[in-house]
């Protein structure tokens, strides 16, 4: 059994599986165009080696290039909500939907809840990559961890610390030696987040 979706007039077929209900929920809740869902679904199934309909951290770990990514682990972590060991297709798409470019043609409907690809949600996603203990603040230690993974081995601990100090100093408005989300947002005020945190194919 297949469902046929038209993309630019080209029919694409998609197998209907057990997780069809999840599939439809995506239609209902997330505004990702169907063609991408099809594609993501294929990818999801490819990652899901044991065909359970759920992805475990190991499944993500199997992606080779991700192992080389300095913050790969954090991004994998972002897919799993606290306390959850697995991620289903719904959440999978929902997380990836953060990276959709904002839709300029359809202006935001104020009555609708904040879309997942809004500037704030994108920033929140980035923020939680830093904020591993989920206390709403990027502490110096947390920033140091990220810096350490992002910078090459050549940098000394002292250098790291001075960068971290400087970074916090710059963003920290209330002098608590940590960056809150509000401060994080402020420090990136001039950056076009929609450009920097979007991937075209998810449009």
């Amino acid at each position: 059994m297949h469902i046929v979706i038209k993309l630019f007039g080209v029919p694409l077929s998609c197998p209907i599986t057990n997780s069809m209900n999840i599939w439809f929920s995506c239609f209902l809740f997330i505004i990702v165009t169907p063609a991408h869902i099809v594609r993501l679904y294929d990818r999801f199934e490819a990652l899901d080696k044991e065909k359970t309909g759920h992805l475990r951290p190991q499944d993500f770990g199997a992606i080779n290039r991700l192992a080389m990514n300095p913050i790969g682990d954090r991004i994998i972590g972002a897919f799993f909500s606290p306390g959850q060991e697995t991620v289903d297709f719904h959440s999978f798409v929902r997380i990836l939907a953060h990276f959709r470019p904002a839709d300029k043609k359809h202006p935001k409907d104020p009555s609708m809840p904040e879309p997942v690809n809004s500037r704030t949600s994108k920033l929140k996603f980035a923020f939680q990559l830093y904020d591993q203990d989920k206390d709403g603040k990027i502490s110096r230690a947390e920033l140091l961890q990220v810096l350490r993974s992002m910078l090459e081995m050549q940098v000394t601990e002292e250098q790291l610390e001075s960068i971290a100090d400087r970074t916090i100093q710059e963003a920290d408005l209330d002098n608590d030696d940590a960056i809150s989300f509000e401060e994080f947002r402020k420090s990136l005020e001039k950056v076009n987040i929609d450009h920097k945190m979007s991937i075209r194919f998810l449009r």
Partner: protein
Amino acid sequence: PLRRVLLILPFGTPLGGVYKERTKDAARLSEFNGKMLLVSWEWSYVQTPYIIAIWILVASVAKILFHFSQRFTTVVPESCMLILLGLVLGGIVLLTSKKQLYQLEPGLFFLFLLPTIVGDAGYFMPARLFFDNLGAILLYAVVGTLWNAFCTGFCLYGVKLLGIIDQKVQAGLMEFLLFGALISAVDPVAVLAVFEEVHVNETLFIIVFGESLLNDAVTVVLYKVYMSFVEVGPENVQTADYFKGVASFLIVSIGGTMVGLIFAALLAFITRFTKKVRIIEPLLVFLMVYLAYLTAELFSLSAILSMTFCGIGCNKYVEANISQKSRTTVKYTMKTLASIAETIIFIFLGISAVDKSKWAWDTGLISCTLIFIFVFRALGVVMQTWVLNWFRLVPLDKIDQVVMSYGGLRGAVAFALVVLLDAERVPAKDYFVATTIIVVFFTVMFQGLTIKPLVNWLKVPRATNRKPTINEEIHERAFDHCLTAVEDIAGLNGYHHWRDKWEQFDKNYLSKLLLRKSVYRKSELWEVYQKINIRDAISVIDQGGNVLTSARLSLPSMASRASFPEVTNVTNYLRENGSGVCLDLQVIDNVPGAKVEEESETHHFLAGNLYKPRRRYQSHYSRHFMTVGDHERQDREIFQRNMKSRMETFKTTRHKRHSHKKDRKQDLNDKPRRNVSWQDKDPVVVTVESEDEKGEHLEPEKEEDVGITFVARKVPDTPKERPKSVPAGLEVCQSPSVAPPSPTCSERNLPWKGGIGTLPVCVSMEATKIIPIDLQQAWNQSISSLESLASPPAFMGNHVPHCLTHSTTEQSPNHTHQLRPSNPLSSATSPSRRRVFISFNNSGSTVSIDSDIHYKHTHTHTHTGYWTNTAMMILRKYSEHPIMSTLFPI
């Protein structure tokens, strides 16, 4: 073949002429039968360079004049004014000599003027932005230019058939296509000149400008192909020739790019090894980039492509390899050359227009051309954008398209190409030349003049001239990693995937090959961090440093973090004052290890304690290290400031030279080979940086460690302890007139000092700890008389808790001299205002000279040798100075 002819054209005659004239002069001289002429008129000898120099002077003066009126220049683009000036000048020349002597020679243009502009553009091209938009740029450059060329050519032919263009214009389809090809290309010079003043957002700018650079290949190929078609005659063109044209396009474009990249790699590789000859670095950059252009031209490839890619490719590695000074030199020289070239191009465009022989006016042709290029440009942009927006993350909206269409300026390239046409083969050449001039003038002047109001009216997002903060730098890097990860998770080999792959490749292979070791081991983000710090420091100093005068600020730095609780004070203070500047001038060694630690402290100590900022040095600050005479000037400063109050006789620089000479003589005794004076050496000093020696020459570094003269100790001694610690090596040194201070080891490492290092080091680390109490008082008294004299705008008391003269510091912050027995590191690390504390062992008594030297170091380890040297010079002066003998009778 296209431009090969040009080589001979412009310079063959004049240079040959010069030579002939010279021999003629020699012959004429002999005719005078050996009679000696006191003054003779040698115009023919200097003519060519003289005229060139005069033209450059005229161009520069014109530039200066235009910028007198701020209001005027904001409305009228410089290029318009220059063309107008050219018209006027051309008129004058025409009136005086009845015939136009000057015009924009294609040879001169393609071989000298254009490369300077393209080289500058390529080298300073924002690489990330360029490659982010490479797809769009390529589409517009290739498809857009082809579209423009064909449509304009065919439509002109059609209009000709309709009879709108006069019959006098003898041109067939091929001629019109040829004309269409050369008139259709957007010109980099014009685009740069106009867009740089408009300040549209970066994406828009890079697309239009990138297109103007990359369409060169298309133009060259079309021009060549049509030329050959015109030569053989349209009826003889075979189908194979069209395919040859396509193949030629591929070869010209890809070949040009490859040549550029090869030269980029070569250049980067060469700059790996210039550590000892810093002075040659800027020259190398210019040479190689220019050679990339010439080589491409040599193989009749696309020279602009070659140069652009050479610039883009080498920039990252070259900038990392060469010294800060060389970077500045490259930057300013490139900008100067490009600016002058641009000025000359526009002036000569104007002059070229005033030439009777060029005026073959045909209203039909001109108006049709104007309409067609505008219409097809707009159409092409709209259609291509429509396609492009399917694939772009950030679609180009309507406003962007309007600006892109309107910004399709034609310029000097088209003019030079049309002048190159062979009048015998293309009978309508004169008409084409006239039309091209009108088109260029129209686009540059009319569109250039109106694009600014248009951009304002359309509310096109402008470029922000803001430099990213460290937060943005870090987070954007994180975003990049994030996007790569997401693409990997989504199983997509998208843009970020490939960018990441390239970065890996670059890190693992290219950088290893092309960067010198010491640079390779540095982290990019760390460099960025330092750059931002320096920028802040400079901006604070540029603001006059007044922010810091009132409050005694302790800025958070690594070493002081433990000792000073008020870490956040600075930021708070700065924030309250609304300066928005965050100062953190800490200096930290790049290389870990205890061995380097002390040495680096010394470095920072010296490098940080530079001459105090003064108002009149501000301009010099903003472009740090541009002035070569800096060193000398500062010496004079210190010298004069002190001597004024004490010894009127020592004001003159003559004395200084005198003392220099004395030193030199003594030096000569040591080393006869060294026949340069101190002043002569100054520029050389500048080029030496110790940073590189770190990785590659560990041994001398170590030596430096041991023998370094100027010491800041980490743990401050209590004053009581100091007099007790009498150093062993004190007796080594005699009176300064007998034995000059021996060069420190860092000096010994300097190239011109090689081999002097055999003298005993008379200034020991230990010596700095000693200050006899009685001397101290004497010194203090003499100093206090100085205080009112020179009052630098800003001074920040150092935090030196255990210092003997601590109270003095607090009471009179404007000291020029102070006695400082010993300087704990805490004073060295207190940022922005630092001092050099030079201790000099003078036959048993230790003189401590403390001078405020403004903060101007840009890199942790740069200029250590330089500053050590400066310190030594100060010492030498003082050692010969009577004041020394009065204060410290031997």
